[in-house]
């Protein structure tokens, strides 16, 4: 049994807690509930014929009132960088958090998750910027914590990347 710590980081209201809730409990709630502090969940997977225990740290969202304490990432084998596809500024926040994470824990696998794919009519992200990130080697996935689309794939992609390290 391999145990890996992963973190979810991103701006506020991007859906980090909803992604974890959908992945771990298959539950989605439409009501936005601010996360205060750190929530830890656990999920077991079988990847590459190996039992993998993911210890998932859902960190509070970053904004002007709460800055993410990067030391919480210490010991993480990877992270999901979450942005809300319907709010352009959340991608800027995610990119800034990625740089901070890189400085804190070095190069570890991560997946950029563009959440709220069910609201594609309100999509605001610059496709060119996303393509450039993918061309530079970033793993980028669209998810919807509401419908479940892409959620498991995001965690599995990260899990596989960590096992390949």
């Amino acid at each position, binding site marked *: 049994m391999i145990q890996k710590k992963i973190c979810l980081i991103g701006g506020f209201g991007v859906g980090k807690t909803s992604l974890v809730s959908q992945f771990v409990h298959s539950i989605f709630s439409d009501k*936005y509930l*601010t996360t*205060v502090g750190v*929530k*830890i969940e*656990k999920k077991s997977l079988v990847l590459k014929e190996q039992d993998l225990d993911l*210890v998932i*740290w859902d960190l509070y969202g970053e904004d002007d009132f709460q800055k993410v304490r990067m030391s919480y990432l210490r*010991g993480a084998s990877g992270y999901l960088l979450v942005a809300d596809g319907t709010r352009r500024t959340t991608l800027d926040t995610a990119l800034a958090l990625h740089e901070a994470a890189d400085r804190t824990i070095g190069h570890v696998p991560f997946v950029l998750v563009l959440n709220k794919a069910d609201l594609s009519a309100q999509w605001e992200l610059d496709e060119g910027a996303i393509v450039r990130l993918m061309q530079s080697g970033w793993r980028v996935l669209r998810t919807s914590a509401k419908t479940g689309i892409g959620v498991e794939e995001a965690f599995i992609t990260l899990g596989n990347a960590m096992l390949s390290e």
Partner: protein
Amino acid sequence: MGDDLLAGLLQAMDMVVFERRPDGAFVTITEPPRWFALMNADLRFPFLGHILAEAGDFWDRRVPGVQDWGPAAELDEHGKEFHYKVMAVQAEERQYLVFQLDRGSDRTREMLQKVRERSLAESTRSKRTTSLASDARHTVADIHDLLARLRATGLTQAQTDVMAEVTDVLDELLMSIDRVARSSQAPV
């Protein structure tokens, strides 16, 4: 302070205090309250492991003071979320690890929730206004085109005067649209 008094005080403050002995062992100096017992399941201790690594560095410096972590969220036996904080304390030569129920987190969440909901609503309203303004600008441009085509057909003086007035009204409308669009993008 007597042991009973101290125990009562810590209990009232929802605190659990462990003393860190020189061999690294932790010894509780008071009876842990009920909420603390909930934290013995395997899911909880990743957070403690994280803290202990950092707290170890803090204690090794032997500088009197406090370093804190949290809040961290847990669920009680009814599935209701509660929060706690953890503190590493260096007091003279003694070292303590303190857990405290964080009742203030509910207020913090309430406040953050309001601010963020307002911010999200404002962002949605701003996007909607920008979109409406864009549609209105296109409509005005279409009317200008129609007026230009009318002019090209040859007009009487009276019709030309009316057209000039319509053009002025459209220009004022455009300025109003721009004002509304700008104000919707101003920070809250």
